[in-house]
């Protein structure tokens, strides 16, 4: 009966219901987009790390992200190889560089150099050309999303990096970067040549721990052996990269701030409409109290109203949010909707509506049941 009463109260005034639902919907979409951008951005920031098959990263002290690291001289590789529990050590190069478009204009890019015969880190989502073509001198990859940035239009296009000619032999799709600085994959040898590095130098050494070895123990041993360097697990490097790009630049704070604002706006709108709905039905609630209903019963009716509003608003809000996510899939702005995020949003909507119900409950608590005699 509580559900029936709550539902009838809710649907009795369709205008109020529409306002409530629009309020929740607006809030859900706003929070979903903000958190979706946050999650999508985090995914982009860590995409290179996510596609690397390793457990521990050795890099220069103070490395901020995959693109922002110093240069390792090469001895670190041998120190790592002699450490118990280390199975493989892969050199990786990652650094900003200058791309010169065919028309002469400049563009910043990030060169990622790896050994393409190993599977430590390879370009992904190759839609044209193939991986082996990178072994050709001057060969590099480019992502289709950034063709305009790079001033190219197809496979086989040529340009210059640091005044050296490069040719696109493989095209990827969806390999995006947070800074919209395109990732250019190439071989280790080619990367060193383009960046002017010596044959032993690298930006990172990626460690693959032997089966059965403990990552923490290997990390501690590497720290002992290689003082003055950053020895981070994959998780730690991802965290550091997100911290640097999202919170170091303020972008993350803006996204989270937007999500909080969305929650706040939604809560206020729902609180306002639930309060108004309770006021509209105040005589019925007073009658319930006069008839001897417990406070818990009345609170349940109001909470159920809030819960029903939450389910309705959330469902409609999610349909719109998923539409936005779908529309953004080929854009530079990455918005993602994961099951965890969807579940979290539902919990947030329920929480928002529960908080909103509090104002109505306070109003009900103050009802004088004697008012039923004065009507």
């Amino acid at each position, binding site marked *: 009966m509580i559900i029936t*009463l709550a539902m009838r109260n809710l649907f009795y005034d369709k205008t109020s219901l529409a306002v409530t639902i629009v309020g929740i919907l607006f809030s859900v979409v706003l929070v979903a987009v903000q958190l979706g951008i946050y999650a999508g951005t985090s995914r982009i920031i860590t995409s290179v790390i996510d596609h690397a098959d390793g457990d521990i990263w050795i890099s220069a002290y103070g490395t901020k992200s995959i693109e922002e690291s110093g240069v390792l001289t090469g001895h670190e590789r041998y120190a790592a190889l002699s450490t118990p529990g280390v199975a493989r050590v892969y050199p990786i190069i990652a650094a900003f560089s200058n791309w010169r478009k065919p028309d002469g204009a400049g563009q910043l890019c990030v060169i990622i150099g790896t050994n393409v015969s190993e599977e430590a880190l390879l370009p992904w989502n190759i839609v044209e050309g193939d991986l082996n073509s990178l072994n050709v001198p001057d060969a590099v990859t480019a992502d289709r999303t950034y063709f305009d940035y790079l001033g190219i239009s197809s496979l086989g296009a040529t340009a210059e990096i640091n005044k050296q000619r490069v040719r696109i032999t493989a095209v990827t799709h969806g390999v995006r970067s947070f800074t919209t600085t395109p990732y250019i994959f190439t071989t280790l040898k080619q990367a060193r040549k383009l960046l002017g590095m010596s044959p032993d130098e690298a930006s990172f050494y990626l460690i693959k721990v032997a089966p059965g070895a403990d990552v923490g123990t290997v990390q501690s041993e590497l720290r002992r052996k290689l003082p003055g360097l950053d020895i981070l697990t994959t998780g730690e490097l991802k965290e550091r990269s997100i911290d640097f790009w999202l919170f170091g630049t303020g972008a993350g704070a803006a996204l989270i701030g937007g999500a909080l604002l969305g929650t706040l706006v939604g809560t206020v709108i729902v609180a306002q409409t639930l309060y108004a709905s309770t006021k509209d039905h105040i005589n019925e609630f007073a*009658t319930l109290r006069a*008839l001897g209903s417990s406070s818990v019963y009345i609170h349940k009716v109001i909470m159920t109203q809030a819960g029903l509003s939450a389910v309705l608003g959330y469902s409609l809000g999610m349909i719109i949010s998923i539409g936005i996510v779908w529309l953004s899939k080929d854009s530079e702005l990455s918005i993602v909707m994961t099951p965890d995020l969807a579940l979290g949003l539902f919990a947030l909507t329920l929480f928002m509506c529960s908080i909103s119900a509090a104002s109505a409950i306070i109003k009900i608590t103050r009802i004088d049941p004697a008012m039923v005699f004065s009507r």
Partner: protein
Amino acid sequence: MKNSAIAQTFDVAKELGEDAGKVLAVKGVTLSLYPGEFTLLMGPSGSGKTTLVSMLGCILSPTSGSIVIAGQETTGMKPDKLARLRREQIGFIFQSYNLFPTLTALENVALALDIRGVPWSEAKRRAAAALQSVSLEHRYNSYPKRMSGGEQQRVAVARAIVGRPALVLADEPTAALDSENGHAVMELLAEITHKEQRAVLAVTHDPRTLRYADRILKIEDGRIVDDDRSSNSSATKTRQHGTKKQKRLSA
């Protein structure tokens, strides 16, 4: 009276308002209400009728004096206990019916059982029986706005009695009704009183309702000034009006 009282007040007084606006609405009222007795409480506006009924219904607490309902002293009782006493022992009928506009007649009556924790199927069965007892079996699924004032008040009567309370309190139950429906509702209340041995107290200033009463209490300026219990009242009158009732309700 042979039976023990369902409700008793002992020197009850109630002060309303605050500071300079304080008014002593009820001044030292002592009375008892018995099962099987239909009592009318009459008095001019502002005489304290509604305040007294609110106190008997455990909705207002007296400023002084004490009230005993179904053997339980209500003075100092916590709101939750008072609410439980209301739902277990008292049925209310209001001047404006106070039905839920979003619920059907059956749901309105069953709601009174739902708040008592009666399972929904049982609540609906008993609500249907209560509506049948007020001749509204054809209105189970009607919403209040689709019913006449008389029908709505009969739904309210069904809601008041469905929980089988010992005491029924009615506030101006005929005030919003035309003469015919007013009589029908009063006959119904008289029947509930005598057939089911409940104590029924109705506030009224409608002189047409006098003939249904077993007892008439007159209140003026917060005091009971007359307590008239006629010896030939209830049974005879109920019998006299019994046959007419069915015709009116059917109409």
